[in-house]
């Protein structure tokens, strides 16, 4: 068997369906096969440390042989990013101006979407490190809406930045025209750092889009339970991701009540059977992995390994 099917695997879905467990089990499975795997959690409410039984934080830490983990701290990433900009600003403009526009920086820092943007930056950074030493990266993403926004960023922003670069080019060209008679204006036209910076950003989006839309490079798996709401939400999410050209690898139906559960679950079992059929109907043709409800919560690598055994049965 091959060590892995693709370098990047994402697990997403509604909160509480067992995304983190599934991604940990999948990563453990890859690591067991001798594939150097990095497990990334982007959920603001981190539970990865709990599940793998190791203290993880914002830097990559080893969990066991061939397996590393990181819990992205969006707030810290954003702080670091803003700090870098402030340093750069102090080097370029006078401290008086820096002081005056400090307020603007605060606005950007607290604006909605800044955490998503910070996480996305880290995503691309981690994806770029592929090959040294990780051969595979498994992402445990935040609940659905948040994730979709994150993954739709490259397409939307790519077009926006293109437009912006074109406008800036035009304005610089105009400055160049009048700059012949005005040295101050000429200074604006040569080596424009704004276009350079925007182009770098654009290339970054392009790269992440290339990763995300290539089914050989990445795939997205939805974790859901056999219940009504998760099915509807997953259907919506699958549709959206496909609209953005991100390949959906398949579904993991988690916490299936086993038939031997007893009388108490009899009604639920009947309803579940219906929902399982609906899942089959809606998402037929995709890989669907069924995981049973376990006797206890998954904690520690032993138990994660047990789930990994179940995953092995279907090569995701």
């Amino acid at each position, binding site marked *: 068997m091959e060590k892995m099917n693709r370098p990047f695997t994402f697990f997403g879905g509604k909160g509480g369906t067992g995304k983190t467990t599934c991604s940990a089990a999948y990563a453990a499975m890859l690591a067991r096969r001798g594939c150097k795997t990095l497990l990334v959690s982007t959920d603001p409410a981190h539970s990865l440390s709990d599940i793998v039984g190791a203290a993880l934080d914002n830097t990559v830490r080893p969990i066991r042989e061939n397996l590393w983990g990181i819990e992205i701290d969006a707030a810290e990433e954003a702080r670091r990013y803003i700090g870098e900009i402030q340093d750069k600003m102090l080097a370029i403009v006078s401290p008086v*101006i820096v002081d005056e526009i400090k307020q603007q*920086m605060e606005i*950007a820092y607290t*604006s909605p979407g800044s955490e998503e943007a910070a996480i996305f930056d880290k995503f691309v950074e981690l994806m770029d490190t592929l090959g040294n030493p990780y051969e595979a990266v498994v992402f445990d993403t935040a609940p659905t809406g948040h994730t979709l926004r994150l993954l739709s960023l490259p397409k939307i922003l790519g077009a926006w930045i293109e437009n*912006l670069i074109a406008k800036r080019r035009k*304005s610089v060209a105009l400055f160049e025209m*009048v700059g012949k008679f005005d040295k101050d204006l000429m200074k604006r036209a040569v080596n424009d750092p*704004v276009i350079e910076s925007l182009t770098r950003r654009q290339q970054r989006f392009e790269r992440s889009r290339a990763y995300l839309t290539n089914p050989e490079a990445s795939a997205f798996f939805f974790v859901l339970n056999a219940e009504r709401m998760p099915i509807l939400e997953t259907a919506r999410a699958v549709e959206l991701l496909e609209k953005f050209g991100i390949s959906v690898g398949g579904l993991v139906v988690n916490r299936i009540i086993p038939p031997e559960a007893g009388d108490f679950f009899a009604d639920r079992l009947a309803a579940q059977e219906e929902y399982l059929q609906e899942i089959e109907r809606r998402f037929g043709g995709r890989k669907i992995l069924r995981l049973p409800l376990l006797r206890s919560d998954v904690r520690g690598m032993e138990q994660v390994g047990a789930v990994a055994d179940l995953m092995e049965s279907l090569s995701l």
Partner: protein
Amino acid sequence: MHERWTGKLKKAWGAVWEFVWLFVFGTFLDKRTAAIRKEAWDMNDNVMLLLFGDYLGLPNPVSYYTLEILPYLAEDMLPWQRRIMNRQSVVAEKAAQYDFT
């Protein structure tokens, strides 16, 4: 003695040349380039608006990413904000560009 005279001559020549240049610039060039210059600044303002519209209350989905451009445009920031907040009439602004005389 000789050096002092050449120095003075150079200075005088510089003043004359500057006068001639300013005369030519003011009479023939400045007015002709004013329209382009105005257009360049307008375009620049538009770029600023796209980049930093959220400081004026226009939501910008990517204000986090445009922040990295701020250091290069920080000097323009406050004048731009003043300009854009004080705009009275766009029509009058455009009309001012044309030379009706």
